[in-house]
């Protein structure tokens, strides 16, 4: 494939890109102004014919303006490849010129939302570990062009081309629909519920902003307080709500997992993992082995029974940007053999199973009890101030056992072990997480000690990697110093690049 020749001149994306950009702008506009639309529909009958006419004209003009904008964005979006650099020109009035060296490119991802699926184009995202400005998103390329571009960028990766011959086309992992349902039913439903609540709250805020603007705030407040006061009276309602929330939580996890991970397929190619997933938005991610900073293997009791767990891959994130969720890549529904395969791909020849687990000092448990106790007493204080009735304190009967249970669990699950190359840190309460990090990927180490810890001769060790912190809490100072020195020794003598 003479793919490089294709990209040596500046070129635009596929013409269908105009449509994708146009719809994208419309979608954004809709998201910002949907409340006006809502108002408009509500008051539709109250408008006189002439105002209606002006509104239609205005909307039409706006649509045309958006279309011209989309066309100009398309027209000015040009890219090419030169000297191992990806060069991009864009901007209508404010022109920007971006150039990214191939070494800095962390990922090349393909994505397809519903529209892109219908018109059969792929969105190509080029991710770097640098600033967010360097993230490039090409909205529409035909599959052939997209793969040619990917090839052109990755072709210089020598190790990749050497091994290209022994490519295996059978997927390492394929999660079917039933399997996915199984995965989603055993998800952390509480987390799903919280996510849903967060979405609903932002939705509610938008609505309440609207009502406030219209001076109807009180009506809404009255409505809510009326409902909450009756809620206090009826236990049946509470139980009903609990069941309702449980169902909602389970449903929302099922929907979330199925939407995100539908038809999850993982290939091992050229020393990299290729991950395809998604229902409405199809996602293809290529995970280069060297770019992975650390991985976490997690499961919970039910998943353990079913023999499935999920792996989270953490890649380098840039300093000032907020934690980017999409840089965390998750593979759900892994069986034991597949985990082994992924582990051997990322960390070959490492046998860590027959090492002793080192546990934290009992101070760690005491600290958790202290913090938990503090939290509980603050909560009780707030309850005392907020409610006059003493019924509210009954919640402690439920909370205290939960606290004790989870503290004991997390103390028991907190351990660490390491061999010459790797550190494993285990943690978790109901879920169990096992994090693997190679010593040479550590960016800096920190030893932390409070006065109380100093009296007991224990310390916390914090390993900072390019993708986040890993902490070993409360171990004896002698061991902490040993592991500290050893980490520094490994990092300073390592010849491998951490990225």
């Amino acid at each position: 494939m003479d793919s490089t020749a294709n990209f040596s001149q500046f070129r635009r994306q596929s013409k269908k890109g105009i449509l994708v950009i146009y719809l994208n702008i419309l979608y954004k506009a809709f998201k910002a102004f949907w409340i006006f639309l809502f108002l408009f529909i509500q008051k539709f009958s109250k408008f006189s014919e002439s105002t209606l006419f002006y509104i239609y004209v205005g909307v039409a003009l706006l649509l045309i303006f958006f279309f011209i904008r989309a066309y100009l964005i398309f027209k000015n979006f040009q890219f090419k490849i030169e000297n191992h650099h990806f060069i991009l020109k864009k901007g209508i009035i404010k022109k920007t010129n971006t150039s990214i060296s191939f070494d800095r490119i962390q990922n090349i991802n393909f994505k397809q939302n519903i529209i892109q699926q219908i018109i059969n184009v792929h969105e190509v995202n080029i991710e770097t570990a640098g600033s967010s400005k360097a993230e490039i998103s090409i909205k529409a390329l035909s599959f052939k062009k997209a793969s040619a571009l990917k090839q052109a960028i990755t072709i210089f990766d020598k190790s990749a081309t050497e091994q290209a011959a022994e490519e295996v086309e059978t997927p390492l992992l394929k999660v079917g629909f039933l399997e996915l349902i199984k995965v989603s039913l055993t998800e952390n439903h509480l987390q799903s519920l919280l996510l849903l609540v967060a979405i609903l709250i932002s939705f509610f805020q938008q609505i309440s902003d609207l009502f406030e603007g219209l001076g109807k705030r009180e009506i809404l407040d009255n409505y809510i307080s009326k409902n909450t006061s009756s809620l206090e009276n009826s236990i049946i309602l509470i139980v009903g709500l609990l069941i309702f929330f449980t169902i909602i939580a389970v449903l929302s996890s099922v929907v979330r997992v199925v939407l995100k991970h539908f038809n999850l397929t993982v290939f091992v190619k050229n020393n990299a993992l290729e991950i395809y997933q998604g229902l409405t938005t199809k996602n293809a991610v290529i995970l280069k082995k060297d770019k992975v900073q650390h991985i976490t293997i997690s499961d919970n009791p039910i998943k353990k029974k079913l023999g499935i767990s999920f792996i989270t891959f953490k890649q380098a994130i840039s300093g000032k940007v907020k934690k980017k969720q999409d840089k965390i890549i998750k593979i759900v529904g892994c069986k034991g053999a597949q985990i082994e395969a992924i582990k051997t791909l990322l960390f070959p020849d490492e046998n860590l199973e027959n090492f002793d687990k080192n546990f934290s000092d009992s101070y760690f448990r005491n600290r958790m009890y202290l913090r938990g106790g503090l939290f509980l007493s603050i909560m009780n204080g707030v309850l005392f101030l907020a409610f006059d009735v003493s019924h509210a304190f009954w919640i402690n009967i439920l909370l205290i056992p939960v606290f004790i249970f989870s503290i004991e669990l997390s103390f028991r699950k907190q351990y660490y072990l390491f061999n010459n190359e790797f550190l494993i840190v285990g943690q978790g309460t109901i879920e169990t997480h096992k994090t693997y990090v190679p010593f040479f990927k550590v960016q800096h180490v920190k030893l932390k000690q409070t006065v109380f810890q100093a009296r007991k001769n224990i310390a916390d060790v914090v390993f900072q990697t390019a993708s986040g912190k890993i902490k070993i809490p409360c171990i004896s100072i002698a061991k902490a110093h040993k592991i500290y020195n050893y980490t520094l020794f490994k990092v300073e003598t390592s010849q491998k690049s951490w990225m």
Partner: protein
Amino acid sequence: MIDSFQNIAVTSFPEITKTDFKPIENKYLKVILINTFIVFIIVLVLVFFADYKNILEFIENTIWIYVGMVFCFISVLIVKKIGLKKRKYAVREKDISYEKGILFRSLTTVPFNRIQHVEIDEGPISRLFGLVSLSVFTAGDSSDDLKVSGLLKEEAKQIKEFISNKIDG
């Protein structure tokens, strides 16, 4: 079963505990003093203004606020003064370390081959005393990488030079 700590094949490598740490310049105490004093004055003015405008009338005797503030100020100064002696740094062959804290002690080491860039900052008050602060940054979320305040300008420049040579070389 294998014990991780017994398994370490290399038996001798430089130990951080046996490294000589250097305290930062004593002059830096004056900088801290002035900085704390400025904050104190600002808070004092704000409280005085609030008092003057009778915003604080729900407190019976406002004099206690001032007493409390002075007490806070003095205790902060004492903590800072003791804390200053605990602020130490060490530059070794391949890394730089910084130690600090009385109540919350911490020791951080950044290997040179992970450093992305080095920065020297001169605050307005530090400049009066010829002091600077040296920060090193690594990849990823580098919000709490290493920062050594209260270094002599010459010394900081030397360290920066040293690190830059190590990174490039």
